[in-house]
């Protein structure tokens, strides 16, 4: 049976998988439909696209993911395929091994479509920090897609990929999902193996799905989890795979709205969409009440100590010895290190390495790292207390809609504030999802742009989280087709 490419890419990933399973769609045809779109990408969402479906793509189509190809953030190591984490220091690097999560997805029937653009080493909220040029937002190509998983988010929104995976350290899945009008799930820390993920901040990094809808997110997430990975000491057994989300109402569900994350600094259009979504939730039967997260306002400060500190150490291995770039004019050992790292790293990465090195250096550890770790404890305690009264904590995902390219590149702090609503959940290690809640006008433009609504749950409650998100998604009825048309 033959289908038009437009018809094929109009299917959600779960629908495409079902069609393959039913024999209504050929997995090779499906792969090629996306492959040719991805290869013609004008958003710079991809840094590498597969030349053909893997030889055994047909064999995998019997798996739960039905041969539906997946776009993978650049930082997931994939044997023989460029894996550069958006950095010039790793330009052209092809690792000799594959990340556990990429192997699991391939095993479940999702072949690799391509590698997606990202902020260098996942440090950024706009994908402008990529060593391979910025990615553009499919809703408005003068604007950023968010970051750091901006390539994955843009590819899914523009239907260059049926679905994608990214990583979230302080909001890097949820914020670009919000800015591109798609669904992004940051799982419980430890749910997904980090083995083969080029690290940014080890105690925070977590891989998750970026998808067109909540159903796809549940399907892809289920394939990413499973028995704990013996190669990642911090990974955990994830209970049985999740059922397809089906909840239509929110009766009996208690939503907590933290004043600390829903007031100052949020664009009016975003707040409006947030309030409208709360109204919908009430209509679906949810109880919506204010809740307190007294330390959430300090999360960003703690995060900008902890994440750079870990990053400064994680990025020490990029030294020009075993792989990657080495400055050609390095005659002695010290200059080999300092020039290689000067030329190879971008400005934001250097800024964070400096910040993290400073925070860990002799005499400052207690004042910075030690204190930030204690703030982290307080934030986790805040959430634990809130979850005694509430099933989910809800906030806007990002304080604003997609901003123009270049708008925040010269002001690090302004860029960091993008993560204001997402970082607290990252520090607490709890799962959180962003779903599109509608469109809002940007303060600096007239075209309406997507807004994300974030729900956070206690650890390992992804099933309930996806179910509640599904109910809201059905009620919201977000129309994402404009983004696909643009690309």
């Amino acid at each position, binding site marked *: 049976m033959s289908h038009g490419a437009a018809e094929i890419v109009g299917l959600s990933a779960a629908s495409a998988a079902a069609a393959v399973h039913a024999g209504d769609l050929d997995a090779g045809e499906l792969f090629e439909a996306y492959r040719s779109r991805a290869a013609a990408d004008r958003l710079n969402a991809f840094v590498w696209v597969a030349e053909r479906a893997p030889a055994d793509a047909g064999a995998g189509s019997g798996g739960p993911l039905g041969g539906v190809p997946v776009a993978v953030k650049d*930082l*997931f*190591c994939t044997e023989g395929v460029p*894996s550069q*984490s958006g950095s010039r220091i*790793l330009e052209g*690097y092809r*690792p*000799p*091994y594959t*990340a556990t999560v990429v192997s699991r997805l391939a095993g479940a029937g999702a072949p690799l479509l391509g590698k997606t653009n990202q902020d260098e080493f996942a440090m950024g909220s706009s994908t402008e920090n990529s060593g391979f040029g910025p990615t553009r937002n499919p809703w408005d190509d003068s604007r950023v897609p968010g970051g750091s998983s901006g390539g994955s988010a843009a590819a899914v929104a523009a239907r260059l990929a049926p679905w994608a995976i990214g990583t979230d350290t302080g909001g890097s899945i949820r914020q670009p999902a919000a800015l591109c009008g798609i669904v992004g799930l940051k799982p419980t820390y430890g749910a997904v193996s*980090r*083995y*083969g*993920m*080029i*690290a940014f*901040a*080890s*105690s925070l990094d977590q891989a998750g799905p970026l998808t067109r809808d909540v159903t796809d997110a549940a399907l892809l997430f289920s394939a990413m989890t499973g028995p704990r990975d*013996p*190669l*990642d*000491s*911090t990974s955990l057994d994830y209970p049985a795979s999740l059922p397809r989300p089906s909840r239509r109402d929110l009766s009996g569900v208690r939503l907590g709205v933290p004043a600390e994350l829903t007031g100052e600094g949020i664009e009016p259009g975003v707040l409006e969409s947030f309030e409208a979504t709360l109204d919908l939730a009430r209509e679906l039967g949810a109880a919506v009440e204010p809740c307190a997260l007294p330390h959430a306002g300090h999360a960003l400060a703690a995060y900008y100590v902890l994440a750079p*500190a*870990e990053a*400064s*150490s994680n*990025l*020490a*291995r*990029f*030294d020009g*010895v*075993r*792989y990657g770039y080495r400055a050609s004019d390095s*005659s002695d*050992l010290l200059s080999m*290190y300092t020039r290689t790292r000067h030329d190879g790293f971008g400005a934001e990465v250097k800024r964070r390495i400096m910040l993290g*090195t400073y925070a*860990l*250096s*002799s005499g400052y*550890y207690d004042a910075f*790292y030690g204190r930030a770790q204690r703030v982290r404890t307080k934030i986790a305690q805040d959430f634990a207390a809130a979850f005694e009264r509430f099933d989910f904590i809800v906030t806007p995902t990002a304080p604003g809609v997609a901003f123009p390219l270049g708008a925040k590149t010269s002001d690090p702090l302004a860029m960091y504030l993008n993560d204001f609503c997402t970082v607290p959940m990252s520090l607490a290690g709890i799962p959180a999802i962003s779903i599109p809640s509608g469109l809002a006008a940007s303060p600096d433009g007239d075209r309406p742009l997507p807004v994300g609504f974030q729900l956070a749950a206690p650890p390992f409650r992804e099933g309930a989280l996806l179910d509640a998100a599904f109910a809201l998604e059905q009620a919201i009825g977000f129309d994402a087709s404009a983004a696909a048309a643009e690309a």
Partner: protein
Amino acid sequence: MADLEVVIGLEIHVQLATATKMFCSCALSFGDPPNIHTCPVCLALPGALPVVNERAIHLGLMIGMALGCELAPRSIFHRKNYFYPDSPKGYQISQYDEPLCRGGELEGVRIHRVHLEEDAAKLIHLGSSGRIHGSQTSVVDFNRGGTPLVEIVTEPDLRSAAAAREWLELLRATLRALGVSDVNMDEGSLRADANVSLRRVGASELGTKAELKNMNSFRFLERGIAAEVERQRAIVEGGGEVEQETLHFDPASGQLTPLRSKEDAQDYRYFPEPDLVPIAITAEMLDAARSAMPELPAARAQRFESEFEISGDRARQLAFRSELGDFFERAVAADGGAAAVHARRIADLLTGEVLARLGDSDPASSRLEPAALAALAGLLADGAVTATAAREVLDALIADGGDPAAVIAARRLGRVADSEGLAELVERAIAADPDAAEQVRAGNAKAIGALVGPIMRETRGRADGAELQRLIREALGVGGD
């Protein structure tokens, strides 16, 4: 000037005898071609993560138990950050303020801490080989990188270079008995650094210390420390002040040269390793370590002393070199085990004549059989062979093996008995040296040597010296003493 006291503490790195590396499943190796034992983890490829080797924890606990340490119910790993080509991650995974073991003591030297970490890779200096125009090149081999290490840090309880050496020998014997390491100093599986300082006798504060590295044999350790003590003594006695520094001992020149300058002072930026989870010692882990504990050298020495009635010194000499202790026990077993009657003589032979011939090598690797040594001890006790002839027998046993009685028979090394004409030999000796005979008669006891010597030469030592003297005195009519 007041008397100065030497204060020494040791930091010992022990490579554990596991099958695989500390944080990855690469096999351990020694002397293999470069870079054939590597993987994404020990090459620190982007995205690779460490996982702790279970057996390294087990061996670490055994060491902690052997040294009487307090075993931490919960310990964690830290990152020690520094850049060097032999450190692929740019940090070493080590333990910092929550180590596996704290405290403890071995033969009067207190243990400060025992912790787990990973070894660095090997950096080989190529020199300006011409490969890279005009520059000096080194090459990194990651086969050794990531080998499990236990670091043992003592309190500064040692007071001389010789004491440091002796204590390190005991520690080595203890580790060898535990079977946790090859403890081979020239192959680097046992490495010792020493912190050396001086202070006025009676002072409680420590003086400024120097850190001595690279002393890869017991002899060099002793020489290095001795050299450093002299260097510091000269400074202090000259009214100067010792500066804190790290010194590298060059065994060829016997010189100590500074390793790093202070300008490059280290700031390791330790922080908890986020890629690993805590080690929480379980009852099962403790049971497994406890039941794997062998008898340790100190306890073995005490047992030798009480069981075989040998001197404490002799017992320690045997027990602190476990291969000697093992050989001794096998010889005693051949001698009748609990009923052994020649244990003391076996111990004397082993620590005396055998050691004089074999030095540091294991007697079990010579052709000498423990049963043969026991038999030789028996023949000596029975007077069937003289001490002098026994030395020749021992030479033969070590070189060719076999049974001492057969060697004695074949080489006619048995004691010369009266029936073989000892009396006649005595008469001949007196006749040949009448002067000496006269002096003996006159009461000069020492002069008897001049009469004994020729007889011994003629019998190649097979005559019993005491018996010979008795016969000579008898022949000369001089009373015994």
